[in-house]
């Protein structure tokens, strides 16, 4: 893809967006410190930074969700006040959120008109929208069936609707917040082609991401944020991923995991013909077979929502299912009183859940209370009928030390730790149990690069102790760099298993989209 050769109009026109000295604090946290950027029209500007670096805050200020404490905004050279999102839209700014804001049971057309209806009757607005939708489709190659209902559309299509919504409101500036988080690699490529086209038509695009590859692929200029400050703005063609990573973290980082060859032992986990349904009774895992041996990491790749979460939840005792699951040769209960998290822990299964804030931690509990979470029946944490909080706190201090959790204060509530340190609390708790099988879901979602490095090392170390690890992640890079074997899930089935050394993102991407190597009846689905 031709990406870095953006139009060179920098000298003639006024910047499409100019921020001068933007500062914003939430309580004691300064989310943005004196930030200034200039984005030229007809370019793609990347904003990269770790979670909590202040990227989203900055864009929310630009979109009128927050008011800056200090600073000025200039749009197309004119000083502009943006008190709310209506003002942002009026100024020609459109935003595509990470989590789409679409009405699921409305059609594409209805969603596009929503909030931009004119007059009392809906019909004229819809007719007008239909006409301009056709224009937009031909102009930018954004083809969507206007009468399709949103919930029937794939994620990539839904994202297009979001982009169309912004364009319909005459946006000249598009802000995309982590747009590829939910896309398969091929959908991401399609998105980038669309962005390319929009740039060629003179639109200005701000791309917020934490993926270095995307920045390198498509942006003209890139700004790096760290701890609320803009640490650098550089031309993409004049930088490298390693340099950007260093700017993001403030020190040199290993982008690849040092991995020694696995020495797999006996089978620890054996899954045969497993079916799992979600709470609505919809079958999400449709008869899979999988084994994980001691001393190996099996990664499950797939776009979110293809049954990986349900598989992990079943193994973690959070939901029931049908089929056979053997742990060290003995069957696991898939229903009944012992098919719960406590029963699983007693069998030697540790579980780092996908969503640490809703599942893995109680956000309002102190760190030391969270260290017992799930293991609160452990006799080591007990004295008589009461809990032995002193022992628990001592254990917490040891884990804080060993896992370098910051701030090193066990009395702080989980909520007040950063994402990376929250995850370290969960990982420390589960790994230190010395489990036979570790289930780990999205180990580094919302975790800063420094902590990613650390968590990956811990996972590798556990593997090298001869433990079985089942990894679920939507980050293909993470799957490829950690796993010894990769299984791809699509629509509740395992589409195939590959060795990371013998496959690439493209092949896995096809499997993730339901296209299997052999002719497979499932390829017809979707």
């Amino acid at each position, binding site marked *: 893809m031709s990406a870095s050769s953006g139009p060179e109009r920098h000298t003639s026109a006024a910047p499409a967006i100019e921020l001068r000295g933007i500062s914003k604090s939430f309580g004691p946290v300064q989310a943005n410190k004196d930030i200034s950027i200039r984005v030229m029209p007809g370019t793609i500007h990347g904003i990269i930074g770790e979670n909590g670096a202040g990227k989203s805050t900055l864009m929310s200020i630009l979109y009128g969700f927050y008011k800056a404490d200090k600073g000025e905004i200039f749009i197309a050279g004119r000083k502009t006040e943006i008190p709310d999102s209506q003002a942002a839209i009026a100024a020609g700014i459109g935003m595509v959120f990470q989590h789409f804001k679409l009405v699921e049971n409305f059609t594409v057309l209805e969603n596009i008109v929503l909030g931009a209806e004119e007059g009392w009757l809906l019909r004229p607005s819809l007719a007008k929208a239909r006409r301009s939708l056709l224009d937009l489709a031909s102009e930018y190659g954004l083809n969507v069936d206007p009468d399709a209902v949103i919930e029937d559309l794939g994620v990539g299509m839904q994202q297009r609707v979001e982009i169309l919504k912004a364009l319909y409101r005459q946006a000249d500036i598009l802000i995309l917040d982590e747009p590829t988080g939910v896309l398969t690699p091929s959908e991401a490529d399609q998105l980038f082609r669309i962005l390319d086209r929009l740039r060629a038509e003179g639109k200005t695009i701000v791309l917020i991401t934490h993926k270095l590859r995307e920045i390198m692929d498509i942006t003209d200029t890139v700004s790096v944020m760290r701890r609320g400050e803009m640490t650098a703005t550089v031309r993409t063609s004049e930088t490298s991923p390693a340099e950007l990573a260093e700017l993001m973290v403030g020190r040199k980082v290993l982008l690849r995991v040092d991995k020694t060859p696995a020495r797999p032992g006996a089978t620890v986990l054996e899954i045969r013909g497993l079916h799992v349904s979600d709470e609505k009774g919809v079958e999400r895992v449709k008869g899979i077979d999988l084994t994980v041996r001691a001393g190996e990491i099996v990664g499950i790749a797939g776009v979110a929502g293809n049954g990986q979460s349900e598989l992990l939840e079943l193994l973690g005792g*959070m939901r029931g299912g049908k089929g056979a699951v053997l742990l060290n040769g003995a069957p696991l209960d898939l229903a009944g009183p012992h098919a719960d998290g406590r029963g699983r822990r007693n069998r030697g299964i540790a579980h780092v859940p996908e969503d640490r804030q809703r599942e893995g931690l*109680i956000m309002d509990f102190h760190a030391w209370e969270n260290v017992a*979470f799930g293991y609160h029946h452990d006799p080591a944490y007990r004295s008589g009928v009461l*809990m032995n909080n002193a022992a628990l706190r001592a254990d917490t201090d040891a884990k804080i030390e060993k896992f370098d959790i910051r701030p090193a204060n066990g009395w702080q509530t989980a909520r*007040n730790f950063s994402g990376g340190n929250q995850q370290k609390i969960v990982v420390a708790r589960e790994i230190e149990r010395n489990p036979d099988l570790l289930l780990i879901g999205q180990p580094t979602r919302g975790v800063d690069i420094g902590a990613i490095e650390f968590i990956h090392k811990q996972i590798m170390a556990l593997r090298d102790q001869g433990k079985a690890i089942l990894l679920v992640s939507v980050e293909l890079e993470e799957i490829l760099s950690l796993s010894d074997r990769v299984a791809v899930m699509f629509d509740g089935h395992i589409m195939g298993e590959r060795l990371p050394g013998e496959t690439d993102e493209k092949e896995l991407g096809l499997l993730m989209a339901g296209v299997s190597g052999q002719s497979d009846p499932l390829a017809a689905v979707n």
Partner: protein
Amino acid sequence: MEKMPRWADVVLIPLISLILAAAISAVVILAIGEDPVAAVRLMVDGALGSTYGWGYTLYYATNFMFTGLAVAVAFHARLFNIGGEGQAMLGGLGVALVALYVPWPHWSFALIFAVAGAALFGAVWAAVPAYLQARRGSHIVITTIMFNFIAAAVLNYVLVNLLRPAGSMDPASARFPEAVHLPTLHEMLAPFGIAFSKAAPANVSLLVALLACLLVWLLIWRTRLGYEIRAYGHSETGALYAGISPFKITMIAMIISGALAGMMAINNVMGEAERLVLNATEGAGFIGIAVALMGRSHPFGVFLAAILFGFLYQGGAELALWTSIPRELIVVIQALVILFTGALDNMVRMPLEALFLRLRKRRA
């Protein structure tokens, strides 16, 4: 980082809320042409100025401690138990059966079994809505409210048709035998040479309530069950992850809650009336909600809030007795206290947090 010091959260915010409530109450009293300063003096004098006043204040406070703890325990499991009133009524039935039909040699035995009876009846009355919520998804707020009405009807039926002594026109049980008479504060303090009003109803139940505060504190903050209750209350998906059964916690939390509400009956039925009458609870079950809210669902907070509401009840009664301030105004004052300490908490909290932040920044 914490937004403000803990003492400000625990002491300053309730204090400011109370002062605001008092200020608006003063305005209301002024508006109806009475003197707020005199009114306050009368309330303080009536509730705290004599051992008689104290006796009533503590008597009410005992009721509110039980019902406040009941609401607080359920609230830790994020269950809103509005049914304290009904559970306390049923608890009264349990106490009456224990007191009337067993020949007790000494009040202490009677008290232990009355506590058990009250707790059992209250617990059963709370367990039904708990089961309906846990298994059938019927919202516990709705069902516990409904159960208040059912409890009133049941009690009405039992009193009129079963417990009413033959020939009596009064829908009340027979007077409890002398042997189950609970010592009042007057009788308890006399051996120590402390003169306490003979007429005030405060009794040994106060000590049971204090013990209950302590036990609830231990339960919630020091036991595995309390840990599970709190974890479930904060996050249901988290509880599922940790292997904590939502069904089990819902049932247990509501059973404990109902038992605590029921136990209020040892104070008002056994300690004061010494027979079971209609509407013996006098709304204490609902006051418990405000007490738990104001006490931040912490047993010590519940204790303080119960004393405050005891004071408002007794002071308010005095006010109605000695001035032309109507009884309804007392309800207004109580409502203002509930409004400011409970519902409008953020109104005080946010500016205060901003203030502490600015102070800290200046120091830094």
